[in-house]
């Protein structure tokens, strides 16, 4: 029995690991692509931005705070109709990408806004003095100078999405975290709990290491 259990445990966990990778990869990609837009709007319309527009900045900022304050497990349920609209079903690994992405957008938008706005205002002024257009300043100065900081933000996002994806089990998302909860915690299978936790620890450390290495290389 011992051997049979080990074999099935390996395949269960391997399968779950792929599910985690799948959910985290796509929700990171979508949320970064979508979240970049409000981040840029916030940067441009901020009081110290290229085109300060108070109402725009404050409204958007308020909305981001509202979405960030939703507990993820509530959001998961709330967006079910929306998920069904986009994916065609509300349950499963692919379906769970929708709530994961939605919860990640305001998070990464805020992080990227902070990264962009940390750009040295003197450099922006220098660019202006050479006749740069606003678009050129955004591209060649804001974005270019902020890439390492934005990368740090994405690493932070990936790691929190790994954590959030555990809760995606509620809507049948699967993944390592889900196995840890269902097998390890609810069925008292300590070996599952330990192995899943170890995998998550190693995975998160690895991502952070890669992130730190890239940050150093890019800055």
């Amino acid at each position, binding site marked *: 029995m011992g051997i049979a259990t080990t074999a099935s445990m390996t395949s269960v966990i391997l399968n779950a690991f792929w599910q985690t990778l799948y959910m985290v990869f796509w929700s990171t990609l979508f949320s970064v692509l979508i979240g970049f837009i409000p981040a840029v709007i916030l940067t441009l319309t901020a009081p110290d931005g290229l085109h300060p527009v108070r109402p725009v900045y404050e409204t958007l900022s308020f909305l981001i705070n509202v979405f960030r304050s939703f507990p993820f497990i509530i959001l998961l349920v709330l967006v079910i109709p929306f998920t069904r609209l986009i994916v065609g079903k509300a349950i499963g690994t692919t379906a769970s990408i929708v709530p994961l992405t939605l919860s990640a957008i305001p998070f990464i938008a805020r992080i990227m806004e902070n990264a962009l706005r940390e750009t040295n205002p003197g*450099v922006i*002024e*220098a660019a202006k*003095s*050479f*006749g740069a257009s606003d678009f050129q300043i955004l591209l060649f100065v804001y974005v270019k*100078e902020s890439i390492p900081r934005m990368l740090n933000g994405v690493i932070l996002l990936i790691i929190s999405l790994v954590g959030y994806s555990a809760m995606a089990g509620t809507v049948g998302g699967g993944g390592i975290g889900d196995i840890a909860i269902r097998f390890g915690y609810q069925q008292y299978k300590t070996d599952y709990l330990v192995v899943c936790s170890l995998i998550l620890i190693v995975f998160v450390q690895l991502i952070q290491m890669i992130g730190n290495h890239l940050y150093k290389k890019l800055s």
Partner: protein
Amino acid sequence: MITISNVQKSFQDLKVLKGVSLQIEDREIYGIIGQSGAGKSTLLRCINGLEAYDSGEIIVDGTLVRTNDKASLRLLQKRMGMIFQNFNLLERLDVYDNIALPMKFWGINPRSPESRSKITDLIHLVGLDDKIHVKPRELSGGQKQRVAIARALVLDPPFLLCDEATSALDPEITKGILSLLQKINREMGITVIVVTHQMEVVKQICGKVAFLSDGRVLSEGKPEELFIKPSVPEIKSFLRDGSELLPETGVNIQLFFFGPGAEQPIVTQMARELGKDFSISWAKLEDFRENVYGSLVLNVQPEDAESVCAFLDRKRIYWEVLD
């Protein structure tokens, strides 16, 4: 040529420029000096349109500087390179790409053979040949400012604007940067406008200077005329920077030495000829580009003042009694 006439500018309720007029001729090094808060940096930023002014006119080579006409403002900014107190280089770009940045804004390929030779020439001009692929964080302050100077020159501007460009540098490095500015002015015929609060800068390189105080030009002329025998109390207090303590009894007479007569041993002559006692309270030598100018404060007894002044007049020494 830059003509500034009656320019006014306010930030909310604060009037920063209260009717500034001056004229900057081609190929000169023009200094704008004053205490912090005098409005000098704002004036410079109005010249290249980084800041809009409320009224008056700034005309650069026949074109009116207007910040609401973006297209013509951009063309004007192309003709005016600018350097800053904190260098303002892009941290993620190496020396070459920092210098090339303005080219990108003008659709010039920084990797084309012409661009390459121009940028390497500029790197050579500022003396950083061995730093071409080094990032700013590995450079010293003086080297960063050299990169910024090369960057400001990459679009071949006829004007170079310097906003407190040496204020963050130590005196030795400052000298190097100033002689580089001088070289650029002489060899490339570029008009240099220097905003500073440092007397040393004006004395070393400026052919003409305007003294700004509280948003107004109080005095304009050659640095030696302005600062050896300052005519307005604001300049006097700026020069003295409160550090000198003059005796409160007796009469303090300030002597100015420049031009012919500066080499006479005037103090010992006076002591011998008049047979009076006096003390030296303060003295200073100033180096204005090629010339040395001196100033001396003598403290004399009130009853001797008249004969001392008469002696100085005879020797054609410029003097004045200090209050």
